[in-house]
């Protein structure tokens, strides 16, 4: 389980996060939801140690972040993080060189699934193709958790469909997924849990299925109630 406890972050004299606490369980898809600037990406970056917290704790399966965490948790940022000069095949080799959790066979499957050409250079990829390759880099690791920052941002309908399709395959099955997205409506059926962020704090945390069956509301309905005030 990923536990975020009382996370604070101050940036340019402003409290971006003001005591954020929530959990993301293994085997579930948890979505961090909030309006622009709510601090969703900052939470993911702070979990991965890419930006320091002013205060707070992050625990992964009960342990503080350490170097082995990066073998256990994959992070897929909102943009590709491989240098432009690299060929896609070189990017895969880089990952295989550095990560013990790298699964070459799975990487091959994903490259085929997204119809990516290994001889292409990273710098020449379109936004949609880069997003798919980004997903390959993150999902081909045998990790317990995957963190995704806006995996559907700015890409076309067909690319979105093929990325969403990944969520219903065994590539995700059994792992804990924590993602941020603005396209909640499109992937609502895939979500197990939602965490609504507002004014730097968790406004509501709920199981999507429970809200659907008990209150007859969709995630978007709850978002409107909580965030649109």
């Amino acid at each position: 389980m990923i536990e975020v406890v009382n996370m604070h972050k101050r940036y340019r004299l402003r409290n971006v996060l003001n005591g954020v606490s929530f959990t993301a369980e293994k085997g579930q898809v948890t979505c961090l939801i909030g309006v622009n600037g709510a601090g969703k990406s900052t939470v993911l970056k702070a979990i991965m140690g890419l930006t320091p917290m002013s205060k707070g704790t992050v625990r992964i399966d009960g342990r503080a972040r350490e170097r082995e965490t990066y073998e256990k948790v994959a992070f897929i940022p909102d943009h590709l993080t491989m240098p432009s000069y690299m060929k896609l095949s070189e990017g895969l080799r880089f990952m295989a060189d550095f990560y013990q959790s790298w699964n070459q066979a799975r990487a091959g499957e994903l490259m085929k699934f997204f119809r990516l050409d290994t001889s292409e250079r990273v710098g020449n990829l379109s936004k949609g193709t880069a997003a798919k390759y980004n997903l390959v880099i993150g999902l081909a690791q045998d990790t317990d958790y995957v963190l995704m920052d806006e995996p559907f941002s700015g890409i076309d309908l067909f690319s979105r469909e093929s990325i969403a399709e990944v969520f219903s395959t065994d590539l995700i099955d059994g792992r804990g997924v924590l993602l941020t997205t603005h396209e909640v409506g499109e992937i609502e059926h895939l979500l197990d849990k939602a965490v609504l962020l507002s004014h730097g704090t968790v406004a509501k945390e709920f199981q999507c299925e429970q809200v659907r069956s008990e209150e007859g509301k969709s995630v978007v309905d709850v978002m409107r109630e909580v965030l649109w005030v």
Partner: protein
Amino acid sequence: MNRYLKLLHMEIHRFRYILAGLMAITAAVQIGVIIRTLVREVAKRKEDILNHQSIDVGSALFPSGKLSFASTMFGIQFWFALPILLSIAVLGLYIFLIWYRDWFGRHTFVYRLLLLPTARRNIYLAKATAILAFILGMLAFQLLLLPVENVIFNLIVPAEMREASYFADVIAANQALPFLLPQNFDQFVFSYGLGFSAVLAVFTAILLERSYRRLGILYAILYLIACAAAVIILPVSNQTYFNPSAYLYPEEFFMIEMVIFALVVASSVWLGFRLLAKKITV
């Protein structure tokens, strides 16, 4: 393979074309100017033989009338030093770019570097070692180039017009080379110790800026001023290595400066490791 070595390999691989380009420019300019100068000098002497039946045509540069490799080096100061200065400028610029290239552009590679399952100090050490390897690589290349240039000298200049010279004279003849290749070991350790402490201090300044952004620029400037002050405090108080009336013996001055370099290196490395591990932000 150890992840530090993999990172080092990657850093060297990323700079390989620029390094090869600098080596090619250095070789082309130096060899080109040597060939041009020698061909002209030899032709002048051959013409004089035809006119006067003698090669005794002394000049300020070649008083005996014969050509020596050392004198040739003295005569081509500017063009010989130009590629060296260019290489120093490019390497100096790359001390900044080796960090900033990972932050800027469409695909920010620093995310991937910081997410590697290895101690973050390896990123710092790989970049520092890469810079050291580039500097020593260029130096080694220049050292290899000198005998090649000597061979070219021997091929162009006929034996009867040639005067032998020592390599120490060749290095001393050019103003740029004694700085790159000091003739005594203490001076070598001093110059390269100073250079490497400066590189590490700049690394730490860059990490301060990357960690605290706008406020970090101020911290970085203050840190560099503090390091520079520590290093120049002795020379400013006239306690230099070369000053015979200084209070300190040259050996004492040398030892104290070495300790100061070691302190600058230790504080830069410690702070750099700490910033990378705890404060860096993408």
